[in-house]
């Protein structure tokens, strides 16, 4: 497989890479799910494990234990429409891994089209990955406060519409994560994404920051959607709205309307 500017990888390419043993596949589901069945050759990194300590040192330790070095192409998958996988992929990018992509379908879809799975647990010889942090893809609360004014950044809230209407970071626009996927794939085709973003006045030279509710999963998917559509310089506000609120930063609300009462949930 080639250097992943491609963001996502389709099942055929992944299968041939697995056959060539030229890729490390990471399964982001819970341990018990992984143990039941998974894509052959994959290793398990439950998102919770990563979130319990996502310091670069700890991440590198994990990566090393999976036998991944700076040159190993990595493919990440989950069963949560790509959002959890995105968060992990972004973390790898952040510590300086340059060849990571998302499987473009979920594990359920993989099984539905009857592709091979296994219960076999894989162990790989430990490797040494370097740490070359890429702060340019990370946004912090402090950064956000001035980003809009200073850099004309576009803040993208990837939560669902009603959550956004209720409260969001001032000036953010709303691109719900569901808008990014299709009924088969975790992300819509590139041209379609491009059109959606262009409709919203996002261009390839925009600076963009995505965020969601709490840990950067939905917005991780948002990050990769923008990347796939080749939309400029994108950052993830990884601690997202939960942190923003806990810091008591200002928020904005769509006022004077009872939109929640339109929901049939």
């Amino acid at each position, binding site marked *: 497989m080639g250097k992943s500017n491609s963001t996502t990888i389709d099942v055929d390419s992944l299968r041939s890479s697995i056959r060539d043993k030229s890729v490390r596949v990471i399964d982001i589901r819970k341990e018990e799910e992984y143990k039941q069945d998974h894509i052959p050759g994959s290793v398990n990194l439950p998102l919770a494990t990563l979130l319990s300590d996502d310091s670069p040192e700890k991440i590198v330790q994990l990566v090393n234990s999976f036998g991944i070095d700076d040159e190993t192409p990595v493919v990440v998958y989950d069963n949560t429409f790509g959002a959890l996988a995105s968060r992990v992929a972004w973390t790898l990018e952040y510590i300086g891994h340059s060849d990571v992509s998302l499987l473009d379908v979920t594990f359920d879809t993989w099984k539905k089209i009857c592709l091979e799975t296994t219960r076999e647990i894989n162990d790989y010889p430990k490797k040494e990955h370097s740490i070359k942090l890429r702060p340019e893809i990370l946004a912090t609360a402090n950064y956000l406060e001035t980003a809009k004014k200073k850099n004309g950044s576009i803040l993208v809230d990837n939560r669902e519409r009603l959550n956004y209407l209720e409260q969001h970071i001032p000036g953010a626009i709303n691109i719900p994560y569901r*808008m990014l996927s299709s009924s088969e794939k975790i992300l819509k085709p590139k041209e379609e994404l491009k059109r959606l973003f262009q409709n*919203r006045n996002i261009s390839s030279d925009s600076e963009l920051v995505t965020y969601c509710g709490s840990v950067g999963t939905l917005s991780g998917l948002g990050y990769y959607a923008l990347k796939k559509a080749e939309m400029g310089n994108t950052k993830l506000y990884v601690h997202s709205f939960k942190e923003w609120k806990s810091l008591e930063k200002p928020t904005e609300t769509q006022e004077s309307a009872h939109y929640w009462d339109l*929901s049939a949930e």
Partner: protein
Amino acid sequence: MDHSKLDYSKSGKLSEIKINWAKPEEVETFAKTVKHYRQDKISHDDFRRFRLQHGAYGSRMTEDYSMVRIKIPAGEIHPRQLEKIADLSEYYSIGSAHVSTRQNIQLHWVILEDVSEVMRGLAEVGLTTREACGNTVRNVMCSPLANVCPNEEFDPTPYAIATAKFLLRNPLCQSLPRKFKINYTCCDDHGMARIADIGLIPQHKEIDGKIKKGFKVFLGGGLGNWSSVGYQLEEFTPEDDLLYTILAVIKLFDRLGNRKNMARNRLRYLVNEMGWEKFRSIFLKKRQVTRTTQSIIHKLDVDDTPQEYTPPVVSVETSSTPAGYSRWLKTNTLKQKQDGFRVVFLAFEAGDITSNHLRMIAQIAREFSAEGKIRNGFIQNMALRWVAESELSRLYSKLVEVGLAKTGALTMASPIGCTGTTSCNLAITNSHRLAKEIQRKFLELGLDNDEALQDSSIKISGCPNSCGQHEIATIGFYGGGGRSGKDMYPLYTMQLGGRADGEARLGATCIRMPAKRVIPAILKIIDVFKSERKQNETLSSWIQKIVEGKGETNVKSVRDIKNILEPLTKAPLIKEDKDFFMDYGIGESYHVKTGKGECAA
């Protein structure tokens, strides 16, 4: 799971979409026009007119969001179309869709820049939003019981579809003085023929020894400011005259409608200001001219190929039916004129339905309806027709399993609530939520199962306009604001005895009731009715008598009901009962806040 059923449901032979209402190039035009508007290349007013013409209505307090109204001509919708709407509601809206009282499906809080994407998705399944809003001919309605109603003389559906086809994008209808509504119904009992600009009921007549098809046509009805019941045009309007009749009315309205004063500019104002007889004679001349001067011979493209029906799959399962079956059968289904089939109504809460439920309904329609499609109803609901009686208990089990077996669909327990303050600029109260609260209360008390209440209705509008159709409800409400000292509270004006059937009449105003006292007031009326009624009398007929001042016992008139309810209207002190001063839904204390309406835009 039984695999033969699965295969059948996947065959989809009957769910083919035969009519394409969409025009894909409108998608690009819309996207481009939004851009031009944002770049100030077109004026706000021009853009607004354009947006409405394409079915996108502004949202409450903001034009950055739209309510996208999907036209469903004759209310007929295919499973694939429902599935597409489900996707679009998740991608671009709030994950729920809304079935309107005019058989449209609405997606709320869509970002203006995304509207073209919604239109694109709809075009893929042959649907359009074109002329769903604005000063155009709106969705052409047709009774959800058309073709299956035991009272109907023939099926009006092909005529409704042909009318919609003829008028959609027709140059004649692009800039009418105001909106224009056409309703076809099956019979006098079921429908809205008398409250539309043009209402039509199928009718046979023997002429020269031959049975001819035609319609009973009503003109100039409508709800809203100066609500009116339509006038019957003539005894019998033959089928051949249908198109000329419709064209002549629209042309007259186009020419004579009061373009200077939008607020008084529906056909009913024209008719009432001119007087019916005068209007009628001008109309008859106009129709004569239309008939003779049409340069091309226009004919409605009525497709009356008999509908195909797939014989029902005979159930082999003998698993027991969940509890509540007979209640559901009684309150949600009707016998068709065709032996062995029923129409099953699905009740929602104020017309709201989740994307997942839309998908399930699509699947269920494929599996259980022999016509393989769905009809949107008149009261924010959906009808599944051509369900074999032998399949009903299996269908019920399925509906229970997926959470779609809410009872009371055809009873007073399913109130209509317009959008209200959930998204409409004109709303004063949260009528939408109130309808849901009433429904929950009625179901909790089992009132849907009470036969004496079954032919009654509750309809609620969030302002004096009539999207909630309160004037034709047995008990209707429209929203307003009340004041106690310096504190404001939401309230509703209650109207009694309205109906839209052959005995159509508008409700009589009774009392102004604080929003938080509406439910107790309804329950009080039911209590009084129960102690006063004669044997077998229904609430609706009892109220009818009272509205006519013919009450026979202690309660003789609307005034008597008012006196009974009066104690409920007293405002408490705000410190004693803060809730009284708040509307339903999350929010701050109540104050009236409205934006500019777009109805008259």
